[in-house]
């Protein structure tokens, strides 16, 4: 069964075709990689998938639901959550509050309940605190729950972003360079975390990454993007040994 089907997706900025006739099919439960040299349009694809940019042409279907006309908020509710290449945390909130913001739409009480502290408020707050702590445990952040997010070390900030994205209970998780700036140990740990998330949360994951060790280590399939168009796609090991791909990265 296909979780995500993207057909003929295109967008241009002025005369530049940032993404051109892009196709992508991800099966349910798959760990899929999107790679390509700098400026290939990978993050633009993420922005199109999450509604930050509106596609000029093409369709995006998530689990049978058409997403093209939806806003970012509606797309998130439909089941896509993402992390960002340049970390975007709620810096002045605590670590646990960052996750609770992710649980926002899953918190069942109204503004009125909140201001007048009705029983619903206490019940729901207790539940989401537990949920948030669970997510932090998965990411190994439970000890830092009450830290201000800005004070976390870099690697943990990336993990917190994943926890926050997971809190929206998505069907598809988009990770934009999750290993950027991590040392080899942290990357290895991150690989385990991503696998754990896929297996235990029943998640489909699409990730952008430059670290080929991570890509070959966990992605089952990859698509290579170059100058906005697809170069090739297929089983990771085959694609990474493809001469065209090596050329695109290293030049002639």
């Amino acid at each position, binding site marked *: 069964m296909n979780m995500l089907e993207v057909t003929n997706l295109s967008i241009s900025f002025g005369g530049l075709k940032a993404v051109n006739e892009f196709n992508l099919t991800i099966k349910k439960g798959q760990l899929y990689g999107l790679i390509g040299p700098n400026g290939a349009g990978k993050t633009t694809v993420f922005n199109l998938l*999450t509604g*930050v940019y509106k596609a000029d042409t093409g369709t995006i279907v998530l689990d049978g639901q058409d997403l093209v006309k939806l806003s*970012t*908020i509606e797309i*998130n*509710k439909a089941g896509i*959550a*993402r992390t*960002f290449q340049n970390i*975007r*945390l*709620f*810096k*002045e*909130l605590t670590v646990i*509050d960052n996750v*609770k*913001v*992710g649980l*926002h*739409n899953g*918190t069942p*009480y109204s*503004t009125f309940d*909140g*201001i*007048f*502290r009705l029983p619903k*408020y206490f019940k*729901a*707050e207790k539940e989401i605190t537990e949920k948030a702590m669970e997510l932090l445990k998965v990411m190994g952040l439970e000890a830092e729950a009450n830290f201000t997010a800005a004070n976390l070390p870099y690697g943990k900030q990336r993990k917190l972003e994943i926890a*926050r*994205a997971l*809190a*929206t209970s998505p069907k598809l998780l988009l990770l934009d360079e999750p290993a950027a700036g991590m040392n080899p140990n942290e990357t290895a740990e991150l690989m385990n975390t991503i696998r754990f998330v896929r297996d235990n949360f029943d998640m489909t994951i699409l990730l952008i990454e430059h670290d080929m060790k991570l890509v070959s280590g966990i992605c089952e399939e990859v698509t290579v993007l170059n100058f906005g168009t697809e170069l090739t796609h297929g089983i990771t090991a085959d694609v990474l040994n493809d001469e065209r791909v090596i050329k695109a990265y290293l030049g002639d």
Partner: protein
Amino acid sequence: MKKLSKSTKNSLINYGMVIALYVVIMIIQLCGGLSNSMKGFLVPVCIYVIMAVSLNLVVGILGELSLGHAGFMCIGAYSGAIFSKLTEDTITVAPIRFTIAIIIGAVFAALFGALIGIPVLRLKGDYLAIVTLAFGEIIKNLVNVINFGVDSNGLHFSLKSAMDMGLAEDGKIIIKGAQGISGTPQDSNFTVGIILVLITLFVVQNLVNSRDGRAIMAIRDNRIAAESVGINITKYKLMVFTISAALAGAAGVLYSHNFSTLTSAGDKFNYNASIMILVYVVLGGIGNIRGSVIAAVILYILPEKLRFLSDYRMLVYAVVLIVVMLFNWSPKAKEFKEMVSYKIKGMFAKKEETQA
């Protein structure tokens, strides 16, 4: 006893602080130790505490600069006063009439907050600041030319002059252009002021420490990320703007019922007033509710108490503002404060140890 969370503890301290202040002042008053000039400060202090706390919701929690806060106070003041004048003879029980007046003032201000919020909140940063500034001025000047009266035929209204309304002989002029509203029943007192301060704290603090408060602060910290986790930015901006305006409106009603005449002339509703409230918020600490309360109390009373310096009064006031600013925000001062609080905590810890 159940363990209280840090935010609940902070809220309780704030309520306690306000109630303690009330009790102390009431005791002093009963003993006759309160000068007439001090008595005159009591209600205005409450008004400006409400204004500062409600503006802090916009500036500190939502992170948008609004310079038209006094405009909402103006709307509240006028709508509340009009109601009281209209019903002066029908509702004779002052507390009931005043309560309804406060609600009406808050609702009208909230209405304007929402009405102006819809187009304006698409703007950000400086642009929003400029538009809110203009809004405040427009309200003030508009109110300045309105004539409004009532007679047996109903309500009358004119922008030219009071005569133009053509009131019948039994008519009563309510707003007389630039002369404003006179003879508003003086229902405001310190107790009502303190109750309103407590209500303001209750609403603002509970909002901030709820699902909606987290969403609002998330928008402040990172708009794009907030949207990506499904937070409706326009809705929350509008909500904050409306609630803040409603509270300012209530403060306005308190204001208009504190004096018998209400005019929009002078500097009570213009941008100077808005900036002054912003100064309370900034010096008290942006996003810090308790700071807003303390700053509003001290900074309102200080320039009044400095009157004996006559010409040098505002000079001293300015120096005080700069010193407070440095003490609150400079890194050295922060370090010093941390060291002091650490030492104090250390002393208490030692005592506990020796007791154990």
